């Protein structure tokens, strides 16, 4: 389990780094899906199989497909990649990357305290998560449903084309 965790963690970091540096949006999306799948593997090794399944189904499945549909609707041509190459110069990304590296060093320094081991021998079962979700956290579930409804209505309202000719059809 230990080795699987470190391999998945390395794959996740490398895939995420590749995802934010690609010129082509679809390539970045595919690398991000690899990263999300390896994070799901990390969840599994940490003893959270339900979160791993949700990560694959909702994140790597639904949300990334939403991104893919948006990229398809944008219909980006090859000139976009030229533009990305122009924007992504070392003098542009050097400063923010260095500052983020300093922040990461600080975070790691703050996190190394010896917090104790995670034992995968007693994983948190989906049953326990379900009991917590619809017991103590039932208000949170309702709030999440209201949030998703607001997202649905907002996306529908913002996504319709303005103009009289389309409004007749709808």
């Amino acid at each position: 389990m230990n080795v699987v965790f470190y391999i998945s963690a390395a794959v996740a970091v490398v895939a995420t780094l590749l995802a934010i540096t690609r010129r082509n949006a679809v390539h970045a999306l595919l690398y991000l899906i690899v990263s999300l799948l390896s994070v799901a593997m990390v969840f599994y090794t940490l003893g959270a199989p339900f979160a791993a399944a949700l990560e694959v189904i909702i994140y790597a499945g639904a949300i990334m497909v939403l991104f893919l549909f948006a990229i398809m609707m944008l219909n980006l041509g090859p000139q976009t990649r030229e533009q990305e190459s122009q924007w992504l110069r070392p003098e542009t990304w050097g400063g923010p990357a260095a500052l983020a590296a300093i922040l990461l060093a600080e975070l790691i320094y703050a996190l190394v305290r010896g917090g104790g081991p995670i034992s995968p021998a007693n994983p948190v079962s989906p049953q326990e998560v379900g009991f917590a979700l619809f017991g103590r956290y039932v208000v949170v579930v309702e709030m999440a449903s209201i949030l998703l409804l607001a997202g649905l209505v907002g996306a529908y309202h913002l996504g319709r084309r303005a103009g009289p000719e389309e409004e007749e059809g709808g």
Partner: protein
Amino acid sequence: MATVPVDHALILSAILFTVGLTGVLVRRSILFILLSIEIMLNAAGLAFVASGARWGQPDGQVMFMVILAVAAAEVSVGLTFVLQMFRHFRTLDADALNQMRG
């Protein structure tokens, strides 16, 4: 069975969060900025799940599901804004949106 220290899971979460933050800072395409925000949300979820697994409590995974719902709502509205922006300005450059009225 070998166990994973909780520090290492939290450090992985910190690395992923920082990579996502770097993506937000260095990319100018609004699509990549949204993608990097997804990376950051996912890293926050990883921290929740790791902490929940450390103490064997289901609360971490409940919070992860809340983060999933927030990410789904955010990305649907955000991508709709991206489509509207591309319709109005014919570009994905975040610097094109420097005026309140488009």
